[in-house]
């Protein structure tokens, strides 16, 4: 037993770290670190730099642009990427639809879509959740009726993250209305330019436009855009969600935020000194760091176990990562908010001037929106209550 990285793994870590810091534009990384809105061009720029290096989709099959990395290398790569505040390669492309097409798609679909997914030539969004189907995803109502060479799709999708930029949507729709819940669902690929597709923004609790509603009204989808077999979509969705959950702890992101708090605290005036002199504050921070260290090792244990697991089946232990990882992400945003203090009350500057007065708190305008936005992480990807149910059933046998 040795929890340390090997010299090769340390060299690998240095290689990826140095690449992120030198090749991904600093202004993009600063935006990520400060919780500022990214332009969709920023995602594209960053992902294409990664893809040119062969690193946009390292976890894919090698034949489709993946790297022959160990589980530990993949873990190091993602952690370093997050700690360097590089935008994550677009999740819907790289971690969701890409692996599903690579695993279950036909050859034509692979040829047509995978290279464009990796390079973010096509921007994908997820059409799973519906107004009446959240945690109980299988109760979805969107219907796809086969008519000749097309499916005619009718329904409504929601919480469609970054759908305003999307070229394509991967969508779950009911193809057999008589089958019981999970059966009778199919996995369709829908061109967002198809007549009948309407995207409407939802402004979230942080005041930003991140998610959307998508209305599907008599949308004709060519049958060649069915992935795998008709009525087997639920299996593919489960495979996708299992992929989603690995790495969902976002430990690197929490570490990056803690590093930032430690950088800012000694620069943040408070009383006779700075916030770094406030041992109450630092004690709360240290308590979060300890839990995060524990979770980091828990994640390494899950990663090590992956080597001997069936990759298509979710590891129920990854539910721990989702649970504690989301809680710790949220805890770091609360500490950042506390660090900002009253300066957190003000948002974006409307006028000009007085630059010198607010300089030590110039970062503080995003503290509250980041805190607001991060409430989502214990809801998405299977709410934390659902994760409790998963562990109770799959691990404890209750």
């Amino acid at each position, binding site marked *: *037993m*040795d*929890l*340390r*990285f*090997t010299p090769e*793994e340390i060299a690998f870590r240095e290689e990826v770290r140095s690449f992120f810091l030198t090749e991904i534009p600093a202004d993009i990384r600063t935006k990520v670190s400060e919780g500022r809105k990214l332009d969709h061009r920023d995602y594209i720029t960053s992902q294409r730099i990664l893809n040119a290096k062969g690193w946009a989709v390292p976890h894919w099959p090698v034949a489709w642009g993946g790297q022959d990395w160990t589980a*530990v290398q993949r873990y190091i790569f993602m952690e370093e990427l997050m700690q360097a505040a590089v935008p994550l390669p677009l999740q819907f492309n790289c971690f969701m639809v890409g692996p599903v097409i690579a695993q279950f798609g036909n050859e034509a679909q692979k040829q047509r879509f995978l290279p464009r997914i990796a390079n973010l030539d096509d921007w994908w969004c997820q059409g799973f959740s519906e107004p009446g189907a959240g945690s109980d995803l299988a109760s979805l109502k969107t219907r796809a009726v086969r008519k000749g060479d097309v499916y005619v799709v009718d329904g409504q999708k929601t919480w469609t993250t970054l759908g305003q930029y999307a070229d394509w949507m991967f969508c779950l729709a009911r193809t057999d209305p008589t089958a019981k819940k999970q059966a009778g669902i199919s996995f369709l690929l829908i061109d967002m330019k198809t007549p009948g597709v309407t995207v409407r923004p939802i402004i979230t609790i942080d005041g930003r436009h991140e998610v959307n509603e998508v209305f599907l009204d008599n949308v004709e989808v060519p049958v060649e855009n069915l992935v795998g077999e008709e009525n087997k979509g639920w299996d593919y969705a489960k495979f996708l969600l299992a992929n989603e959950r690995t790495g969902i702890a976002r430990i690197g992101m929490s*570490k990056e935020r*803690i*590093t930032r708090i*430690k*950088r800012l605290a000694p620069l943040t005036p408070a009383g006779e000194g700075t916030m770094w002199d406030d*041992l109450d504050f*630092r*004690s709360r*921070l*240290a*308590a979060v*760091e*300890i*839990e*995060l*260290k*524990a*979770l*980091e*090792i*828990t994640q*390494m*244990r899950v990663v*090590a*176990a992956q080597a001997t697991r069936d990759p298509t089946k979710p590891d129920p*232990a990854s539910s*721990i990562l989702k*649970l*504690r990882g989301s809680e710790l992400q949220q805890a770091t945003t609360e500490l950042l908010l506390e660090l900002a203090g009253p300066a957190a009350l003000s948002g974006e500057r409307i006028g000009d001037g007085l630059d010198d007065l607010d300089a030590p708190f110039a970062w503080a305008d995003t503290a509250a929106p980041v805190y607001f936005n991060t409430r989502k992480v214990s809801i998405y990807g299977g709410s934390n*209550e659902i994760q*409790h*149910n998963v*562990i*109770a059933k799959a*691990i*404890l*046998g*209750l």
Partner: protein
Amino acid sequence: MDFDLSEEQTLLKDTVERWAADTYPTLEATIAARAEAAGFSASRWTELAELGVLGLPFAEADGGFGCGPVEIGLVMEAFGRRLAPEPFLAAIVLAGGALRLAANDAQREAILPAVIAGTSRAALAHGEARARYDLFDVATTATPTPSGGWRLDGRKTVVEHGGTADLLIVSARTSGARRDGDGVTLFLVPAGTPGLRVVPHTAHDGGRTAEISLDGVELPAEAVLGPIGGGVAIVERATEAAIAAVCAEAIGSMRALTDLTVEYLRTRKQFGVAIGSFQSLQHKAVDMFVALEQARSMALYAAMMVEAEDADERRSAISAAKVQINRSARFVGQTAVQLHGGIGMTMEYLGAHHFRRLAMIEIAFGDTAHHLRRVTLAGGLVKAS
């Protein structure tokens, strides 16, 4: 990065687990052993010596096996699961740690073979009432005698298994003020030395402790263990090894308690159904499981870091591990009692004994506030830039 055990480690784990399961199959077996005067059975201690367990941490040159914190952790986890009462932690990890780190050749030859054979047991008499958890806080004094030896005066408190040890390792100040880091020296004090008074106590986890007074205890120059004035560093390293060990013991105990609780939820019926069908109870049990797994990760971290060269990094890591173990132990212990309801409150129930041991583990070698303060003052675990 590798979480797998080697062949030898797997063999050790199986051996110790089997021994603990055979020896303590029931709560009654544990209670019977604790009822002996020493708090454990001498013949069982001999069995552990015969299995080679008592020699694990000592160097091969000293007749031991040269094993590290991972192997010690395997033993402690197995003991924790079965609430084994043997003083492996006090005698082998803690006092044995001080001997291992500080004894000179003559002392090794004279002491270690008997310790490894189980015929002699040492105890570390270091803690003092005012010191709480500060290892440098020592008021007991050692003054030179005209014959070139030392005279010890002072009080030592909560000395684990101090009442049955035939050799006490006593810390005393040879220079400096009470809370100075330097100036503390360790001494080997055989039981029965004139001026030494040892009063045994039972402990709330079923173990044994002792209160010790030293009143003009005269010792020869050869009684000094390790460098003059350098005792705190030795006690600190031995204590770090003990913290890593007690973390592993806590994992064994928490695992047993979590298993017991889940089993109880499955079988206990109320309102015509197993109470484990209630979601509010399921989610509590899941939180116990998560607390256990987080603690397990930090116990592994402690085992990995206990021999790290960088002292600052090592101290923060060990303290961080103890914080996590303490928090998890409190949560798992309290939740187990709550989910069992009334039966969890009784001494006839195995779970209650795990609860008590876990509560004592929380306090041993520093409570949560103590270790969290240490991590805080060290600047935390995540590097600042």
